């Protein structure tokens, strides 16, 4: 647990079918950073995220998490890395056959060394963190609203107290009030636990309040990388249209991708 980067992507090439998505992409995320990844629809944000967490294999190049390439690591090492990060998928990806409680309890039960009471209390704690009342704990995911699914999925991502949180569109589908409390929660977690956050988002509000660094993905690589204020000055055409022309009034929010 030295000062090695949490995420290190080097010379990454990926493709979907015959179309190359990333060319020679480099990205580094240090511990404690909250990095927001922005980019147009279809620019490969989610693909990059999937490669980073080891779901997809890159065509060329490497992606390391905590210094380990999860796809090529031995089983135990891979498992150890997987227990150090939590992922919030775009549509929640709750297990539809399990209740809210069991969804959050699943990663804890998988450790196979905690007693039932501790698991129960931890689950209730995580649900409380994301503002899900105990009466909803017994519900099935199909009975929840979209915003609640998102919050339960966040609770599941936080179940193991991860060092890294990977978020795909965390505030899409949340009402402004909930997305503000989401931002506050992430902020306090990152302050108290030194949580590192890697998020894909279109929400300029979330970016400006939460992200310590913004990386802009366009043309298959990171075209700009730095604090938000610095990014706004960049005159790349995508950045200009994403944040509204530099310096002029309210930012324009791109419609959420399908």
């Amino acid at each position: 647990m030295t000062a090695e980067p949490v995420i290190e992507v080097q010379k990454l090439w990926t493709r979907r079918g015959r179309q190359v998505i990333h060319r020679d992409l480099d990205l580094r995320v240090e511990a404690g950073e909250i990095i927001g990844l922005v980019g147009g629809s279809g620019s490969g944000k989610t693909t990059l995220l999937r490669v980073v967490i080891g779901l997809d294999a890159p065509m060329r190049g490497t992606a390391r998490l905590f210094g380990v390439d999860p796809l090529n690591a031995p089983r135990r090492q891979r498992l150890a890395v997987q227990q150090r990060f939590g992922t919030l998928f775009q549509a929640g990806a709750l297990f539809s056959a399990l209740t809210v409680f069991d969804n959050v309890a699943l990663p804890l039960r998988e450790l196979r060394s905690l007693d039932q009471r501790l698991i129960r209390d931890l689950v209730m704690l995580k649900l409380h963190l994301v503002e899900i009342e105990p009466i909803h704990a017994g519900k099935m995911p199909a009975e929840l609203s979209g915003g609640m699914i998102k919050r339960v999925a966040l609770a599941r991502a936080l179940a193991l107290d991860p060092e890294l949180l990977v978020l795909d569109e965390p505030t899409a589908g949340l009402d402004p009030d909930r997305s503000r409390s989401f931002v506050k929660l992430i902020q306090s977690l990152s302050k108290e636990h030194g949580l590192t956050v890697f998020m894909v988002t279109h929400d300029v509000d979330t970016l400006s309040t939460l992200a310590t660094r913004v990386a802009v993905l366009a043309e298959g690589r990171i075209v700009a990388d730095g604090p938000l204020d610095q990014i706004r000055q960049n005159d790349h055409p995508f950045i200009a249209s994403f944040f509204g022309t530099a310096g002029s009034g309210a930012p324009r929010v791109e419609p959420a991708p399908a």
Partner: protein
Amino acid sequence: MTASLIQLQTRASGERVVVLSGDWTLKALRPAAARVARALKSLAADSTLHWDLRAIEALDSAGALMIWRAWGGDRRGATTIKSEHAAILERVAEVPPVEARRWRLDLLAPLVLLGRRESQIFRHDIALVKLVGGLVLDAFYLVAHPREIPWKEISATIYKAGVMAMPVTALVGFLIGVVLSYLTADTLKAYGAGVYIVNLLGISIVRELGPLLVAILIAGRSGSAMTAQIGVMRVTEEIDALVTIGISPISRLIMPKVIGLAIVMPLVSLWAIGAALLGGAIAAKAQLGLSVVYFLGVLPKVVSPDNLWIAMVKALTFGMAIAMIASDFGLRTKPNTESVSSSITTAVVTSITIVILMDAVFAILFRDVGFE
């Protein structure tokens, strides 16, 4: 990562202090969670002790929760702690305690369960009747508006459930024919009745085995696919989307399957009957020396064409039943993965059972037809 450590120290002033140090995280505590919890609990029983948590290097919610639980959910006044860790402990303290649900013995539970299942079956029957009614109404509508008949979907069903099933039905039919022929040939030969193998195979395959075999294969092959398709469409709300666009799921999804199977089942049955008879004829040639040409020549004389008609009627009704049962179970799928898998299982089991029941009914209805 440093190990979590509990020490009981006595300060110079005579004050006794519990010092917690190291990592108090899920990862560090995991191997000995129960032991640590017990140790904490026994220390917490002595309320005069001072707690010093400043030496804790890393604290996460699991560690905080363990400490908090040991304290019995009450803040110890005599505690020193780092400010950032105090915030974590504070967060744990905020959670309202939840009582674990207790198990109660309910003697009436089996009766309630029985009643629930009974009413479930009743509701299911009503749903099936509704589906059939909907199909009939839609059929009338389509007769009046022939332009809206979903030809494309019907032909897709015919292709997927029929054409694609031709190799497997031919193979299975052929093998059944060979096996039946082999097994009966010896007995028939013993009675010097070898030539009657044509009658035996003809009647049993044409009238009974052909349609039944194909029905079972199609129920497993296409019935399951239909339930899965409709079930997943239910889970992903695609069926609701169809309704809002103004497309009736019954006429666009279910009707083509029912019509498609009604058309294709007799044809596939015919094909399988042909393969089975061919297999039987070849085996008869090997066992009894009956030439294939003789076998096929005698066949129409000993098996009246009525049998073939019965087979076709059976195949048609089996096809419609399979499509309707598969669709019904698909529509009743609840929006979760578990329900999709159990729907498919029950759909296939139910349609095979119903097909065999219907076969028995046909056997009684047509007992006087088709025999010399």
